[in-house]
């Protein structure tokens, strides 16, 4: 049957299971928007294309499906860039479809023409430029397959306007033919046996659980492996939620702002089992002294991550879930009592410094507020953040027992991610409670999406932690630049009035006794709300591994009774 290119796009997209897309129309994608009306697609009109990218990203992270965002050519497409890079760095499957000027105009600096495939080459897993309608079906099929398989990631399709309106014979491709793209599933048997030997010899093993555990749905396999071998589990920032925080083997977050006992355990371990993580500089500290006594087993789907930062003894390249499922029957049961006891001693020392033990001083501390939200929501909300101090405190104190409920920009560290990703996550599961924890700086970067939330009646709760500073930069200036504060004093608008101008109910909280009531108030409203918390201004996130220091050379939390 003959169809227009735009119709073929939607025929394919619907077959991929897409129900909601986030986007912004413009001159070069109008045929796509016109054809969309005939298909069962809910479109969310954003206020800035960056918002569309983060929403599609948040939708993908919370749902485990492929997210989708649309933008027009030129500035519409370039506004997506930060969001595409964010998805790339965190391996999130999103398909971006941008309009492009007609094929015969390409290269002529036509109105709103930008070389989008050129710009996005390094920040997409793959991208396509389509100049003819008959290319669309095959490319869309491939794009969704590439986005979700192997190491997931964003794929961009740039479609020339003529290809959207021209007609072509539509036949949905039965399968994808990609001779150069065949991800590995199983790891070879002799490598597995080699790994088992290292596990047998180990007295002090530790699992480093990364985003890959969530991406390959390996949570159950991880729990089974950890329990069978009684191996403690430390998590990267993005791996939080993959292993239940309340489990006795859980060590919480590792790295720059990880817990002391977690980093101590890594540094003193004799075997590291790295599952779907990539030894980022934020989790290793200086590589010169990283886990000096540990043999290393690295289970990873992307061969280019193996030996990239840390040379490992046994690389197991393959799908994490498959590899773990293969490995579990091969390993024996252990108890590792000594090792767990040692870790618990370190933990007791760290716990004595917990901010939770502080006496109330009348001020609002972000860590306490996060804990209050955790209590009110039973630890069951989907939580998104911006980037900075509040992000670290949320990672430390919103303890998650379930997967795919922690949405944060880890690799790229994108401010402004919190609100739009929360809206996207709400579309993934409208029954779930969604909280966006934001800083005063990051919130202002994408605050315009409040109106998007209103238009969609997205039930998203925003908690702005307002310390009138760009907090993390301020902390670094305090620690490493002799407290010479440069460009970190931040004047903010009246957030309550701002929210109300968007028709979002809002409250300002300045006193401790108002906190619980305000959280309850926000939860009682069906629809978006904003709470601004005026928090302690010059607080620092602890523990902290200074840049370039060894992982166990942490600045500890100050002791306060």
């Amino acid at each position, binding site marked *: 049957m003959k169809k227009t290119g735009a119709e073929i796009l939607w025929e394919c997209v619907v077959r991929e299971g897409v129900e909601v897309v986030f986007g912004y129309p413009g001159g070069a994608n109008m045929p796509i928007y016109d054809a969309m009306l005939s298909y069962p697609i809910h479109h969310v009109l954003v206020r800035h294309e960056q918002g569309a990218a983060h929403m599609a990203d948040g939708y993908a992270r919370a749902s485990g499906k492929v997210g989708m965002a649309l933008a027009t050519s030129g500035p519409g497409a370039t506004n997506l860039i930060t969001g595409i890079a964010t998805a790339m760095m965190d391996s999130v499957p999103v398909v971006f479809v941008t309009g492009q000027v007609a094929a015969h105009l390409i290269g002529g600096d036509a109105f709103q023409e930008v070389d989008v*495939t*050129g710009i996005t*080459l*390094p920040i997409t*897993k*793959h991208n396509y*430029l389509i100049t003819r309608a008959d290319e669309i079906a095959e490319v869309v099929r491939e794009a969704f397959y*590439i986005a979700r398989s192997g190491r997931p990631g964003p794929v961009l399709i740039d479609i020339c306007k003529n290809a959207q309106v021209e007609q072509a014979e539509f036949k949905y491709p039965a399968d994808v033919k*990609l*001779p*150069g*793209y*065949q*991800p*590995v*599933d*199983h*790891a*070879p048997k002799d*490598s597995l046996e*080699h790994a088992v030997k290292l596990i047998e010899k180990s007295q002090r093993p530790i699992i480093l659980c990364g985003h890959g555990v969530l991406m390959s749905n390996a949570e159950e396999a991880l729990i089974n492996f950890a329990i069978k071998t009684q191996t403690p589990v430390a998590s990267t920032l993005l791996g939080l939620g993959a292993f239940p925080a309340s489990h006795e083997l859980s060590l919480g977050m590792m790295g720059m702002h990880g817990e002391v006992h977690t980093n101590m355990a890594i540094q003193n371990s004799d075997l590291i089992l790295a599952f779907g993580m990539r030894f980022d500089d934020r989790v290793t500290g200086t590589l010169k002294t990283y886990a000096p006594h540990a043999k290393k087993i690295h289970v990873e789907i*992307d*061969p*280019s991550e*193996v*030996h*990239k930062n840390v*040379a*490992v*003894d*046994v*690389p197991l*390249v*393959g799908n994490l879930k498959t590899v773990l499922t293969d490995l579990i029957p091969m390993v024996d049961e252990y108890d590792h009592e000594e090792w767990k006891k040692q870790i618990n001693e370190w933990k007791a020392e760290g716990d004595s410094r917990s901010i939770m033990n502080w006496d109330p001083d009348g001020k609002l501390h972000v860590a306490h507020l996060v804990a209050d939200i955790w209590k009110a929501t039973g630890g069951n909300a989907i939580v998104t953040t911006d980037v900075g101090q509040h992000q670290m405190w949320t990672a430390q104190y919103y303890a998650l027992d379930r997967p795919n409920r922690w949405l944060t920009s880890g690799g790229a560290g994108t401010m402004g991610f919190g609100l739009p990703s929360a809206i996207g996550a709400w579309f993934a599961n409208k029954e779930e409670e969604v909280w966006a924890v934001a800083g005063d700086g990051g919130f202002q970067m994408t605050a315009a999406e409040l109106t998007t939330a209103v238009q969609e009646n997205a039930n998203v709760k925003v908690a702005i932690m307002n310390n009138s500073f760009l907090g993390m930069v301020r902390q670094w200036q305090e620690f490493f630049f002799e407290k010479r504060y440069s460009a970190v004093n931040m004047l903010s608008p009246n957030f309550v009035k701002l929210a109300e101008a968007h028709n979002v109910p809002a409250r300002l909280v300045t006193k401790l006794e108002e906190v619980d009531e305000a959280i309850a108030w926000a939860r009682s409203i069906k629809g978006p709300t904003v709470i601004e918390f005026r928090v302690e201004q010059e607080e620092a996130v602890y523990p902290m591994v200074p840049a370039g220091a060894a992982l166990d050379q942490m600045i500890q939390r100050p002791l306060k009774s």
Partner: protein
Amino acid sequence: MNYTFIALVENKPGVLNRVASLFRRRNFNIESLAVGRTEKPDISRMTVVVDCPNGDMDAHKIEANLYKLVNVIDVQDVTHQPSVTRDLALIKVMVGPDKRAEVNSLAEIFRARIVDVAADSLIVEITGTEDKIEGMIELLRPLGIVEMVRTGQVSMTRGVTDGVRRMPGVNGNRFEDLSEMAEMAP
């Protein structure tokens, strides 16, 4: 030292740009890159010579990153394999009739050819390994080289032996006849 890779890629627009962009992005230094069609019309073949200061570790990184490109089908490292390697150069030398004989005798020794003669210049075409071409250039330089162009190196392994493939499992690479990734660790 320089490593030589042979990459088979899909013959599609933009693939060369993807490969070149990858090398730039990951901070690898390309010494030479030659691309051309193969016996199969939908497959192009690249010979890439890259400086690898960390030896096999860098070679591992390059192979792994090349496979991240969806259009890259196969990568072999032929650095340590018996292989035939060729580079072609056209060298324009500023010589009049008095010195043509001298250039001609040099060309004969190197099995090069004079492919163009003008009143006060001539063009020498030479094919061979990089060393051989460098040798010829050194001898022609005193006579006055005014222009030179080189194709970059192309390589092919001898007999039926393939190069080294370091990525077991990827794109249907078999596990057993591949060098183990574990051996790449320093």
